[in-house]
């Protein structure tokens, strides 16, 4: 069965997604829709399953049940002749290459310079020529405000600078979707702003983004849709101005009173 994707197809679509770790149910049937060009924020207390949901989207975790589609394609499986065929390593890697991910702990390659961090994916996965990859990397580093840092190693940069390199590294793959897993949680308070500014800029450029965050200000300002997860289920979702200012459920009221 071929999948016809169009502008109307959501970028991410989850229907009843479940995931357990060693018998503990982390996701208990999650529904979620992320439209193209929109910014979606996932909020909720720690352990609510928001990071797990994000990691399922690029198949860093394998969901156990339910249907999860990215750009119209099932994540990790192919539906043919009435059966679900598990995708092999090569196909999964090809899918992941089109989804950018930014981690809480940056996870920059410590043994590579900033420039090499941003070119390695282009050269080794997308098979871009070295010089072209370097040109693109320098453009992206300039875009995240790090022109001139090409030769530095990650350990020589501040957390905020490292996270901006990580964003450039993900963007170098020319992704159709960007996932952010608590991108500012490991940063000193005064460095949070520089990373959020880069993300706001990216949102304005029309990138489809799914952001797990505790930054309610960012969610209110940038997100098109906010999902509130608690104990593996979506408690509430919708326009951030409504959800964050006039929460309906007691749980979200309780959560917001603690984080705001």
């Amino acid at each position: 069965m071929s999948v016809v994707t169009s502008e109307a197809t959501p970028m991410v679509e989850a229907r009843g997604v479940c995931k357990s770790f060693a018998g503990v149910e982390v996701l208990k049937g999650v529904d979620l829709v992320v439209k193209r060009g929109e910014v979606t924020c996932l909020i909720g207390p720690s352990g609510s399953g928001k990071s797990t949901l994000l990691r399922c989207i690029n198949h860093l975790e394998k969901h156990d049940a339910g249907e999860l589609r990215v750009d119209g394609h099932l994540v990790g499986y192919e539906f043919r002749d009435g059966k679900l065929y598990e995708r092999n390593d090569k196909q999964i890697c090809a899918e992941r290459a089109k989804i950018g991910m930014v981690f809480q702990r940056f996870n920059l390659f410590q043994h590579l310079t900033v420039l090499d961090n941003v070119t390695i994916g282009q050269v080794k996965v997308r098979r871009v020529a070295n010089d072209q990859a370097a040109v693109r990397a320098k453009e992206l580093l300039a875009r995240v405000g790090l022109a001139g840092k090409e030769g530095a190693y990650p350990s020589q940069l501040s957390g905020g600078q490292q996270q901006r390199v990580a964003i450039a590294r993900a963007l170098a793959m020319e992704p159709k979707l960007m996932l952010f897993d608590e991108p500012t949680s490991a940063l000193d308070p005064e460095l949070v702003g520089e990373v959020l500014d880069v993300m706001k800029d990216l949102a304005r450029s029309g990138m489809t983004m799914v952001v797990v965050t505790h930054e309610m200000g960012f969610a209110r300002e940038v997100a098109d849709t906010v999902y509130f997860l608690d104990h593996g289920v979506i408690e509430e979702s919708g326009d951030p101005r409504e959800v964050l200012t006039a929460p309906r459920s007691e749980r979200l009221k309780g959560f917001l009173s603690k984080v705001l």
Partner: protein
Amino acid sequence: MTTNGGDAVQVVPVRHVGRWIGAVVMVVLTAMLFHTLLFTSRFTWSIVFHYFGTSEIIQGVVKTLELTVLAMAIGIVLGVAIAIMRLSPNRLLSAPAWAYTWFFRGTPVYVQLLFWFNIAALFPQLSIGIPFVHAAFLRFNAGNFFTPFNAAFIGLGLNEAAYMSEIARSGLISVDEGQIEAASSLGMRRSQTLRLVVLPQAMRVIIPPTGNEVISMLKTTSLASAISVIETLGAAQNIYAANYEVMPLLITASLWYLVVTTVLSIGQFYLERHFAKGAHRTPPPTPIARLKADVRGIAGKFRTRRGVVAEVAA
């Protein structure tokens, strides 16, 4: 420090009595050592240095180096492969890797050498072909293939692989899980992640003990003399078997091992420095830079000792 109206104040350093006693004891012991080395006639340094540069000994040293290089090459390549197998989620790969290390680490290397040297007694004919059906592409005589030299480097190499696999494994598991996730998120295949991200960072942990293994191997190759390989020790033994100058020739051999070990240690330092890239904000100083800093430090100490003057904060 006390203030004294902004004037310079004398600072009296702490007296380290214990250090002075220790230093005196060491100086006396060192003097005794040199006295023994120089004035014990039976060391016969003239014989030691005469044989140091003879062609027999030099050829032996070359053999030692050949054995070390070949054995370590087998050890490193096989060891890394075994470490990767050991970390595989597939039990049929990890269990044999464990069994290999268990066996080769659990039996003496000397016995293993004797075993390979005498392998022809067990398998007179060796062949490469399709298993179980007696169809061979290549047949050779085990006795001809396992010459003393071949038996020595293969035996040493296979034994070394067991130790290297543990070193490589500790290096591989020292790399943060996040690095692997980041590589996966860029769409790298498992083999690419291993080659481009994990191994280069594991090297920082793998290199120092591997340097240790190389130095250890250099000396372990002397066991090959027991299966009639004429390496450094074998050459020295051949000479003293004829002239009975046992002690001087053992010293000659030892001096050569010391020379090569010293060269290897220097090489290891620069290799470690290379693979520490990105791990430190500032790379560690070279020994020469450190020596210069020490000299400056001692000179500075003597200056303050004489002047004993420090600026006092107002």
